[in-house]
């Protein structure tokens, strides 16, 4: 039970630290440390340009996509080395937000299922930050029920013709490539008729429409497919094997979502140390406030040390246990509770969302409006509880109304 590196880990950490110290864009640090909801702001510099520059630098020095094989642009590093790198990269990692989906989900999927030629051509460009990838999975009719998707791909000679609509595609508007799951056979049960592809986002017939979110921002898109024609060589995995292929993506998504998420305690703690309550005492000295702070503090540290237990498992060469699945579930509701509580303590001023006027630069007001999405994206609270119940605790599946039924016979209203 210790927090020390093994000698090998210590050597790796020292190497990473030295390289970062010598090469990182230190002039951006003050901005990166303030990064919160709603992307990064770099004092007028173009975040995408800075992100690509940092990624390319890392790539050139062998520090990009550490866990990928070298022939695809990675370093062939161990999982624990990747964790150490992340710890050392620290705030600079905030630059890489646009690459997470490509590096974390699309890349591994292409690596497992793509044709060798495409892998050798595309993966290094992805690792280097030259291309950005997106993941075309969710559909209006299939949110939690991903396999209920309806975008269809029909065979036409050596090609496939795609028609339909995707939604919640993060970064589609700045991506060069995407991976796409489609229905190729509606006459078989829903998980069996799916097929996966990869495609350039500027393929004719692809149309990208940003979604304005409830908080006014637009990080997601709708993507429409109107007779989009793809060669069969852009297929990932076999025809009808799309669900199996998508599990590679989703497994990698679950590994990244929620791990290391903050439950939001440090901000509310900071705020309560400053705010004076009605009776003139500081909020931090008020027992009503303290009781809530204590709960959030325990969730924050509980998530932190849960993450460390997972890292330790990696360090021992084991797979992390299922504990990490709790991250987003705990963090999502905590962030929302904290935002509401912080506004409450601010009284009528709590409604003001101007960062120049509101406490903590209106961080809590932004959090109030953003946190509902956290409880939904990448798996709703309810889906996560199902996953914990079924995969961790071994409870039986829900009863399925769609089990073994041809997709086009499943009730939809």
């Amino acid at each position, binding site marked *: 039970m210790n927090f020390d590196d093994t000698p090998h880990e210590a050597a790796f950490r020292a190497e990473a630290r030295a390289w970062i110290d010598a090469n990182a864009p230190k002039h951006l640090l003050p901005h990166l440390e303030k990064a919160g909801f709603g992307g990064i702001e770099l004092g007028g510099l173009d975040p995408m340009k800075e992100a690509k520059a940092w990624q390319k630098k890392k790539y050139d020095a062998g520090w990009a996509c550490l866990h990928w094989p070298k022939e695809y642009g990675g370093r062939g590093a161990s999982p624990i080395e990747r964790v150490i790198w992340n710890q050392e990269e620290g705030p600079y990692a905030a630059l890489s937000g646009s690459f997470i989906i490509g590096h974390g989900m699309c890349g591994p999927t292409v690596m497992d299922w793509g044709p060798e030629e495409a892998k050798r051509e595309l993966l290094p460009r992805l690792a280097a930050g030259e291309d950005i990838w997106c993941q075309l999975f969710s559909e209006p009719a299939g949110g939690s029920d991903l396999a*209920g998707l309806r975008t269809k791909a029909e065979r036409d000679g050596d090609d496939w013709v795609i028609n339909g609509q995707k939604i919640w595609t993060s970064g589609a508007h700045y991506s060069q490539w995407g991976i796409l799951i489609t229905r190729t056979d509606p006459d078989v049960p829903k998980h069996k008729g799916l097929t996966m592809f990869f495609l350039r986002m500027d393929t004719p017939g692809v149309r990208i429409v940003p979604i304005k979110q409830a908080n006014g921002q637009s990080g997601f898109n709708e993507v429409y497919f109107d007779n989009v024609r793809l060669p069969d060589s852009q297929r990932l995995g076999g025809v009808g094997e799309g669900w199996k292929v998508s599990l590679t993506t989703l497994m990698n998504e679950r590994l990244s979502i929620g791990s290391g998420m903050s439950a939001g305690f440090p901000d509310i703690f900071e705020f309560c140390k400053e705010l004076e309550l009605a009776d003139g005492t500081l909020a931090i000295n008020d027992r009503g406030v303290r009781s809530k702070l204590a709960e959030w503090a325990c969730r924050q540290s509980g998530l932190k040390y849960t993450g460390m237990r997972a890292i330790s498992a990696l360090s021992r060469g084991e797979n992390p246990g299922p504990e990490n699945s709790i991250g987003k579930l705990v963090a999502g509701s905590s962030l929302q509770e904290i935002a509401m509580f912080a506004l409450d303590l*601010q*009284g009528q001023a709590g409604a003001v969302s101007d960062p120049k006027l509101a406490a903590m630069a209106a961080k809590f007001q932004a959090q109030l*409006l953003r946190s*509902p999405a956290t409880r*939904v994206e990448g798996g709703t609270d309810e889906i996560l509880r199902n996953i914990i119940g079924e995969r961790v605790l071994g409870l039986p599946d829900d009863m399925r109304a769609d089990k073994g039924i041809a997709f086009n016979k499943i009730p939809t209203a």
Partner: protein
Amino acid sequence: MDFEFSAEQQQLKEQARRYLADKCPTTAVRAILEGSDPFDRALWQGLGEMGFLGAAIPEEYGGLGLGYLELCVIAEELGRALAPVPVSSSIFLVAEILKAAGSEEQKQRWLPKLASGEVIGTLASVEATGSVRPSNVALSAKAGTLTGAKSPVLDGDIADIAIVLARHAPGKDAQGLSLYLVDLNQSGIERTVLDTIDPSRSQAKIAFKDAAAELVGAAGDGWRLYEEALDRAAILTGFEQIGGADKALEMGRDYALQRFAFGRAIGSFQAIKHMLADMYVSATLARSNGYFGAYALSTGSADLAEAAATMRVSSTKAFQHCAKNNIQVHGGMGFTWAMDCHLYYRRSNLLAVSLGGLNEWEDKLIDRLRAKNAA
């Protein structure tokens, strides 16, 4: 016993609902949220013409001369419709304070115009982050003028008159506070519109520089009048919150019936069903507490202060709970700008602080229960 609104009051409620369904669909709320108009002028005028604004204002001052129960049912429908108009500021607060403490001249001058909607009023009390308390009211009243600033002031950008909580005697105590009526259309006033979490109700900072003002009620009575006004407004706003909570619950229920996943309506999944059941529970508790609030308000019961705090806590939690979980029931769709869920979420969180936060009202509730218990 008849612990229910009368048939006439329910008819009035129906009438208000139909009127608002016609004149204030959510597209109208959205127009204010997204556009540059600070409020829905046509709706405001209509509400005045229909007599809804003046329901609880005596006929001699241009109102309908009905009572608080009628105003409660109207408030519920305004809340349900998220009406983007300054009713709470102008009617629940300013007209109420004038009714309670205004001079005969002030009543005659302003109440008819408030009832018709010709004049918009607002209450300006906040100067700092956190709860409003005597020690943080510094705006100073001297020789019939006010100097200082209030922020945020709900509807402060559109109001014609404000009742201002100001300090006429130096110090930090409540005795040094009085209420003043200020015509905001004078040169000593500067207003700045503020960004808020719910732009369907606008807010402003108001700076006063030697602005002419006249006393409302007796000098030194400001804090008491202010607190009493908050109690009455808590009940009326509570009905707005109940209306909003009910609508959010209905939206969630309707979506759960219509949206299919895994081959079945999502409302057949216990996770969703039980979430909606819990929303129903909190909305029902709030409504029942609200009925007692309405009763206390309409009878001027000695329990008014307790009823107000109970309802405030209950209805604030219910609206926040229902609005928040309505988004969750809707899943990703609930987080789009295009769906109306966020309108209710925004409003629920605005109303949760608009008369001071829950923590303040929890305190008041326990103080009041204790005082009653000791009596």
